[in-house]
């Protein structure tokens, strides 16, 4: 349970898709002029990531990685199909996006009206493929964690696009130098936001490093104590020797 909580917050804040790895920047910059459209695209990204990452996890686990085909029989255990992962992942994503579009249109026209136009855009959003590739390279262990990873990375992306859209709506009333207007200032603001988000990195290292230091300190103390005791013994025996003489 704890690892779920840790992964959840880590993917939203520390490894934020936009600010730490720059995934999905194209649509992040293109669709962030208004808050309402940004919310639509963000919701669609959360949805598609939460569906495709676990699916690709299954593909990776039972089809692609080294020895993944062992369940077919011992003679298949040597196969390593991981070079096919790009093409399979992107095919899964493209078909899932189509499928999701059809299902949503059929069962929830209201949702389709708000998400619909963004869904085709999403097949070529790097954040989606990036989610699957990071899931593969970071070696996520269980299906539940893969779902968690997809969902929380999506939420991180959603937060990022929501924040930049809100800032861009306000910045229209500011006096920005003419050559920086539009794209330039958006880049610089994103950079500043990324610097802000870097401070969340302390949440992770702070928890990890503190106990180690304590251990080191105690180990050092033990050694120091030993040295002190040894010198004491030495002086005592030296004194005794002098007295005996």
């Amino acid at each position: 349970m704890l690892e779920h909580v840790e992964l959840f917050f880590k993917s939203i804040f520390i490894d934020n898709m936009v600010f730490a790895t720059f995934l999905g920047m194209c649509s992040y910059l293109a669709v962030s002029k208004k808050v309402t459209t940004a919310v639509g695209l963000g919701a669609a990204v959360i949805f598609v990531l939460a569906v495709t990452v676990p699916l690709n996890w299954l593909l990776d686990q039972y089809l692609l990685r080294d020895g993944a085909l062992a369940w077919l029989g011992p003679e298949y255990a040597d196969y390593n199909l991981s070079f096919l992962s790009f093409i399979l992942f992107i095919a899964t994503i493209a078909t899932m996006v189509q499928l999701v579009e059809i299902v949503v249109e059929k069962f929830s026209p209201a949702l389709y009206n708000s998400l619909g136009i963004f869904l085709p855009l999403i097949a070529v959003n790097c954040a989606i493929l990036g989610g699957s590739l990071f899931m593969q390279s970071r070696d996520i262990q269980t299906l539940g964690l893969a779902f968690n990873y997809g969902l929380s990375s999506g939420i991180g992306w959603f937060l990022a696009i929501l924040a930049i859209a809100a800032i861009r709506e306000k910045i229209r009333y500011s006096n920005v130098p003419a050559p920086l207007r539009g794209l330039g200032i958006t880049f610089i603001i994103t950079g500043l936001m990324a610097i802000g988000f870097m401070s969340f990195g302390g949440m992770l290292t702070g928890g990890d490093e503190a106990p180690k230091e304590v251990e080191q300190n105690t180990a050092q103390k033990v050694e120091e104590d030993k040295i002190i005791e040894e010198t004491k013994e030495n002086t005592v025996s030296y004194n005794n020797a002098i007295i005996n003489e």
Partner: protein
Amino acid sequence: MALLSKKDTSLILDPLADNNPITIQVLGICSALAITAELKASIVMALSVMFVLGMGNVVISLMRNIIPSKIRIIVQLVVVAALVIMVDQVLKAFAYELSKTLSVFVGLIITNCIIMGRFEAFALANGPWRSFLDGIGNSAGYGLILIIIGFFRELLGSGTLLGYKVLGDPIEKTGLYAIGYENNGFMLLSPMALIVVGLIIWVQRSRNKALIEEN
């Protein structure tokens, strides 16, 4: 030159400056930012994209009359994915360390918007030779920006270029370091890539007023 007509030359030269894929068309930003902490990685990335975009444009252009328009996105994705797998395997075989640095970003060439954008906007409507030139031109414009960013980030961040210590040795205090120069480690962190791109856009648009946006 008989090989390249005037129109063809503009196909190559336009994307280098006034129609640059990164600073004007805003395509392919993700990889431009993530891997530019070193110049070497930027150059390899630029070459990989050039290969994928040049070849992909030719393939799509050859198939443009037989692809049903409803499934063209999937066809395009398959073509790109196949080319990217080739690049990835070559990198893993001949430059393993570098392929570790680039990590998932080689795979992300598939969803690099420049590639889909050029397929949609150019290769589906033009012949193979012109599409090839367009692909080379656009990936050169992309590579140019990547190399500029990589140059400044590596030079100011770690004081090296392609791994050579051009500013002297920071530990033995030679060269610039002898007079108290320090590396700005901040340049190596990801946020600075965004700010460097912002500055490049600033410079470009103040030189060419026609590119300035309304707000």
